């Protein structure tokens, strides 16, 4: 799987905006760039929250429909609806992320872009959510799905 320059290439499609689903694409993109693999990111549907200026700093962990709250504690779905549960889980996850020396989402995204990854917002999702390029983090571009797939020619594509 190579791009035109003979480098390996990864294309990551990020479709979920909860904190626990925002970290994997960022970690993978960063790891790819650190080891010399080209990597572009396409944010669609709720994944757009990760690159939306107003949302990116406040992503939450969902405690409902998330049966694997390990290693902190297990929250039965019926308990997850209690007000404050999600905030508590989010607070705990942010603390663990910091302990591992991972930056918070906005800084992580900036780091990945500085490392040479291109970041794209899905045009259709943005139209649906009434977002414009100005709502996205600086440096992000708006792209249609077909165009992103064209850019991903000969890349390994990951859907998160």
């Amino acid at each position, binding site marked *: 799987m190579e791009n035109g320059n003979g480098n390996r290439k990864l294309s990551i499609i990020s479709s979920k905006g909860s904190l626990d689903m925002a970290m994997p694409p960022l970690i993978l993109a*960063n790891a790819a760039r650190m080891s010399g693999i080209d990597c572009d990111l396409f944010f669609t549907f709720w994944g757009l929250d990760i690159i939306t200026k107003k949302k990116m700093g406040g992503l939450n962990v969902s405690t409902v429909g998330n049966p694997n709250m390990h290693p902190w504690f297990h929250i039965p779905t019926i308990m997850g609806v209690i007000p404050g549960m999600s905030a508590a889980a989010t607070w705990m996850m942010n603390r663990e992320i910091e302990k591992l020396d991972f930056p918070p989402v906005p800084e992580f995204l900036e780091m990945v872009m500085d490392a040479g990854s291109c970041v794209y917002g899905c045009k259709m999702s943005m139209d649906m959510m009434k977002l414009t390029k100005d709502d996205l983090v600086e440096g992000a571009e708006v792209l249609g799905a077909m165009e992103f797939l064209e850019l991903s020619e000969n890349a390994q594509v990951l859907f998160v």
Partner: protein
Amino acid sequence: MTIEATSNILETVQFDGDGYMADPHAWTPEIGEAIAQSLNIELTDRHWVVINFARQEFDANGEAPTLRRITKTTDVNTKELYALFPGGPAKTAAKISGLEKPTGCI
């Protein structure tokens, strides 16, 4: 350093299968220079900021610093780090600094 001198130095150094020095303790700045040359990288003062920091960390903790630690602790930022060490700074900087293949995720 001439190409000839470089290859002479590298002949005396043991590497693992991935091109990292087998014994990080055997590293010298001259070996670092020679490895960089073999990777087509001309070392500048800015490279040495990173290399010296990586060696210090290795001496202190027994392992190479993560890229995040390098950019947080030195004045070399992410953009510059990638410009200094093309082809993936985690791998390239570790090779030149004579350190093991990095295993960190950040």
